[in-house]
C-alpha cells in the first residue's frame, strides 16, 4: 500500500508501432517518488518514442501510463494537460528554451501557466537561478548563453513547479564532457533536494552512473535481466 502511494509513474504493457515496425513492445516499469532511473540503449532502440509517449507528444497503441495514480492513455487531452502541468516536466538534449524570452522569463514561464502570484514567481525564480548559478545571466537571451548555461536554465525551468517527475532526454547529448558532468551532478542534486523523481534516457553510460536504477532498452523492449540496482 505504502509502495503504491510512493509510486509516481507506473507503465504497463506499453506498445507502439510505426507501420510494421514495432518500436515499443509491451514495456512495463515503475518509478517511485524521488527515485532516479536511467533508461539506456543504443540509437533506434525506442528510448525517445517512449519518452514522447510519457510526455504526451505521442499516443501509444496500447498499455497504461499511470501518472500519480491516474491513467493518461485515453484521458481527454485537457485533463492530461491539467494533470501533467507542473507535475511532469522535461529537459531536452537541445535545451529548447523559448528563444524570445529572457533567461529568467524562461524559468518563470511554467509558473505563469499555474497563475502563481508575482511575488511567489519572483522568489522561486531567484532561488532557482541561484541554485543553477545563473543569477548574473537572468536577463540574457537564450542566444547569448553557452550550451551548458542553456541546459542549466532548462533544468531550473523543469524544477520551478516542483514537479513529481522530470523526464530528461539525453540531457548531456549536446555538451562537452566537463559540462556534462556538471549538469548531471546538478540534475541529480536538485532532483534529490526537491524530492523529484528523475527519468533519464541516454545512450551515455556516464550519464546513468549516478542513478538509483538503470533499465536497458533494446529493439523496443526493456531487458529485465539487465536491470541494475545501483543502490538498494
Amino acid at each position: 500500500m505504502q509502495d503504491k502511494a510512493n509510486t509516481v509513474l507506473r507503465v504497463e504493457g506499453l506498445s507502439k508501432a510505426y507501420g510494421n515496425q514495432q518500436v515499443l513492445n509491451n514495456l512495463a516499469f515503475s518509478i517511485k517518488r524521488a527515485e532516479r532511473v536511467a533508461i539506456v540503449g543504443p540509437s533506434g532502440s525506442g528510448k525517445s518514442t517512449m519518452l514522447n509517449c510519457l510526455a504526451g507528444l505521442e499516443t501509444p497503441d496500447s498499455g497504461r501510463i499511470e501518472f500519480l495514480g491516474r491513467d493518461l492513455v485515453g484521458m481527454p487531452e485537457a485533463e492530461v494537460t491539467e494533470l501533467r502541468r507542473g507535475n511532469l516536466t522535461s529537459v531536452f538534449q537541445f535545451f529548447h528554451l523559448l528563444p524570445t524570452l529572457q533567461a529568467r522569463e524562461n524559468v518563470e514561464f511554467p509558473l505563469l501557466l499555474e497563475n502563481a502570484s508575482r511575488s511567489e514567481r519572483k522568489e522561486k525564480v531567484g532561488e532557482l537561478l541561484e541554485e543553477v548559478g545563473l543569477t548574473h545571466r537572468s536577463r540574457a537571451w537564450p542566444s547569448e548563453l553557452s550550451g551548458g548555461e542553456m541546459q542549466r536554465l532548462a533544468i531550473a525551468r523543469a524544477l520551478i513547479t516542483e514537479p513529481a517527475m522530470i523526464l530528461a532526454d539525453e540531457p548531456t547529448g549536446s555538451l562537452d564532457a566537463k559540462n556534462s558532468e556538471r549538469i548531471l551532478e546538478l540534475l541529480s542534486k536538485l532532483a534529490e533536494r526537491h524530492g523529484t523523481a528523475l527519468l533519464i534516457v541516454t545512450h551515455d553510460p556516464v550519464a546513468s552512473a549516478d542513478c538509483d536504477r538503470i533499465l536497458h532498452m533494446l529493439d523496443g523492449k526493456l531487458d529485465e535481466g539487465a536491470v541494475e540496482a545501483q543502490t538498494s
Partner: protein
Amino acid sequence: MPGRHSISVLTFWRKFTLRHFREDWFQTLLLMLILGLGVGTFLSIRMANRAAVEGFRLFTDSLKGASDLIIESQGDGIPVSRLAEIRDSLEGTPANLYPVIEVALYPLDNDISARLNNPSTIRLLGLDLVQLQSLITTSDGDEISDFWDMLDNPRHLLISESLATSLGLSKGSQLDVSITGKKRTFEVTGILPEFQDRTPLPENLAVMDLPALLNALGRGSVDRVEVLVPEGSRKSELLAKINDTLIKAFDGDLLIGSPTDKRMEGASMTTAFRLNLTVLSLIALLVGLFLIAQTLDATVSRRRKEIATLRSLGIGPREIYRLWLSEAVLYGLAAGALGILVGYGLSAFTVEAVTTTVRSLYKETSQTAASINLTDIILSFSIGIIGSLVAAYLPARDAASTPPAQFLRLGKRIPPFPLFERTRIAFTMLVVGALLLLLPPWNPEPGTNIPAAGYATAFLWLTGGTLAAAFGLKIVGWLMHRAGGNNAPLLLAGSRLAQPTSRHQLALAGFFVAIGMASAMTFLISSFEHTVTQWLQQRLKADLFVSSAGFQGSDSGPKMSGELLDQIEQLDEVRSVDRFRSKEVEYSGVLFSLAGIRFDLLGKDQELLWLNEPLPVTNAPSSFDAVGYANENFTRRTGTGLGDIIDVSTPQGTKSIWIGGIHADYARDNGLLLVDLPKLEGWFGFNDYETASVFLEEGVPIDTLQIKLREAYPGLTIRNNSELMETALFIFKQTFSVTKALQMIGLLVALAGLILSLLSLLRESGRELSLQKTLGMNRHEIATTTAFEGCGVAVIGMVSGLFLGGMLGLVLIYVINRQSFGWTLQAVYPFLDSVLLAVAVVLLALTISYATGRLYLRKWRPELI
C-alpha cells in the same frame, strides 16, 4: 568540396515546388485565390473603364453600323428645313445621311420603372424608318409586321429584345412614359431583331419613325445628322472630300466631327475618374504582392534544410536564387489565370457600377457588356508574373544565402528582413514623398490634369511607411511583453512580436497598405460627403424642385419643356421659377458645361456658394456679352481666373463672357460656367430645361402644392427640399459604390493575408508548439498566444495604417482630387468610422487568429523534440 551542379527549372518545379504545393494544398489554394482576386480586381476595373468608354458610342450605331461623320448644331438642333441644304451641299457625292432625334423616356408605371433600374431611362431614337427598312428587315429575313402601320404614327414604337425581356413587354403592350416632362402612352409595335454583324442593341433602346417623333414632340429640328459613306476602295478619299465640303459649307454654323471624336470626348472627360479607380483597384493587388513575398518567405524558411542540401550537392547561390524566382513565376502564372476568371466574374458588377457613376456624373452612355481581349489576358499574366518576381526578390535572396547543410544551425529563429530594419531608407522615402507634393500636375492634353506627383507621393509613403511600420511591431511587442507579466500567452506573443520575423513584417505590411489605402479613401469620401451636403444646403433654397421623370444628373438625360414650367410659374401660389439648362461647349480645346440660371434671382431666392465673391460690374472691361460665374474646376481646367474674358462659339456667333465670380459646384467635374439664362436661351435657342427650382409665395403649404403639381404633371418628378437632398445624397453614395467595394476587397485580402501569415508561423513553430505542450500549455492557451500575436500585428497595422490613411487622405483631398477634379473639399476626418473600422478589424483579427490557432492545433501532430 562538392562540384558545381545545376538543376533545370522544370525538374525543380516537378520534384520540389509542385510536391510542396500538393502537401500544403489549402495554403497554396488560399494564396492563389487571393492573388487571383488582386489581379482580377484590377482587370475588372480595366474592363469596366473600357466598357464605360465603349458606351459613349452612338445609340444608332447598333442599328445601322458606325457612322463616319456626325453633323450637329451649335444650338438647339438642326431644323428639318436645313436637311435638304445639307444633302445638296454634297453635290451628288455618294453618302447616306441619317437624321436622328435622341430623347429619354421614363416609364411611369412603378413596376416597369423598378425593372428598368439601371439605366433608369429608355433612349428613344427617332430615325427615318423608311430609309432604314432594308437594314432592319433584311436581317434573318425577319420582317417587322405592321411596319407600314407604324410609320408616321406618333404612338407606335419598336423596342430592343433585351428591353422587352427586362420590362416584360411584348408586341401590343402599352407603355406610359414621361417625355420632356409630359405623360404619353406608346404602343409597342414590334421587337427589333439583333444584327449578327453589329454590336448588340443597347438594353434600353426604343425606336420611332422620325416624322412621328417630331410630331409627338412638336419639334421642327433633329439632334444630329449621321453620315455613312459606302464601303469601297475610295471610302477614305470620299470621306475626306465630304468632310471638307461640309466644313466649307457650314463652318461656324454646324459642327462636323467623327464618332471617334465623340468617344474621345467622353473618354477624356472621364480620364481622371477612371484613373482613380484603377489606382484604387491596385490595393488588392499590392496587398496580394506582400502575400506572395510572405508565402515565398515562409516556403524558404520551411524548406531551408532542402535548400541547404541542394547547396551541399553543389548547386550555387545564383542557381538557388534563379530557382526561387522561377517558383514565383509559377505563382504569377496561377495568379494571372485566376485573375482572368475572377476579373471576368467581377466585371459584371464593376461595369454596372462604373456606368451608373458615369451616367450620374458625366454623360449618358449605353451599358456595354464587359469583354475580355488578348491584351487583358497578356496584362493579367504580366502583372501576375512581374508582381510575383518583385515580391520574390527578398525571399529569393534569403534562399540564396542559405549555407550548405553541414553549416546550417538547427533551431535558428527566422530572421527579419534587413531592409525592414533600415530606418534611413524609410525616412528618405517619406521626406522625398512630401517634397514631391510641391510639383504641379502633369498636363498631357488640354483640360486633363494627372496628379502624377501626388500618386508618386502616395507610392513612396506606402513603401516608406511599410518599412517604418515594422518598427511599430517591436514597440507593440514590448508593450505586450511588459503587460504580459501575469499572463503566459500575452507574454509569449509579446516577446515574439518584440523580435519580429520576416513573416510578421510582411503580414504587417499587407495590413498597413490595406488599412492605409482604405482609410484614406474613407477620409476622402467623408470630406466629400460633408462638403457636398453643405453645398447642397446652400444651393437648395427652393421649396420645390422639378425635373423630368428619370432625370439623374447627366446633362444628356431627359429634359422638360419650357411650356410646362411657364404653366407652373403662372400659378398663384408660385413666386418664381428658376430653370437650369446646360450646353457642352469648348474653350481652348477644353469641353465644359455652359449653363444658364436666372441671375435676377441671385441674392434673393437663389444662392451660390462663393469661393470668390462676385466682382463689382464696375470692374468689368468695356466690351463683353455676358457676366459668367465659373466653378472651380472650370478655372483649373481652362487655366482662367477671376476677371478673365473667354470667347465661346454659339449659333449666334462668338460670345465673350467675363468671369465675374467663382463658386463651388460639385455636380460635375468637367467645368461649369453659369451665365444669365435669358442670354443662354438667346444664344442657343432652346426651350427645354434639365431642372427647375420653384419658390412659393409666403404661407403656401409646400406639401399641398407638391401633391397638386404631381397630379397635374405626372411626367415630372417634383421633390421637396428634403427629398431632393436625399436623392442627391443617394446619387452621391451610388457614385462611390465601386470605391467602397474596392476598399472591402482590399481589407478582405489583408485579413486573408493575416490567416496565411499565422498559418505559416504556426507551421514553422512545430517544435516550439511541442515545447509549449510539454511545458503544460493547453490548446486554448496556445491558440490564445496565436490570437494575441495576430491581434498585435493587426493593432500596429491599424494604428500605422490609420495614420498613413490620414496623411494619404490629405494628399487625396488637397492634391490628387484638386488636381484631377478641381474640387476644393473641406477635410473632415471620419473619427467614428475609423474607430468602428479599427474595433471591427481588431476584433476580426483576434477572432480569426484564435480560430486559425485552434483549427491548426486540431490537425497538428506534435513534433518530436
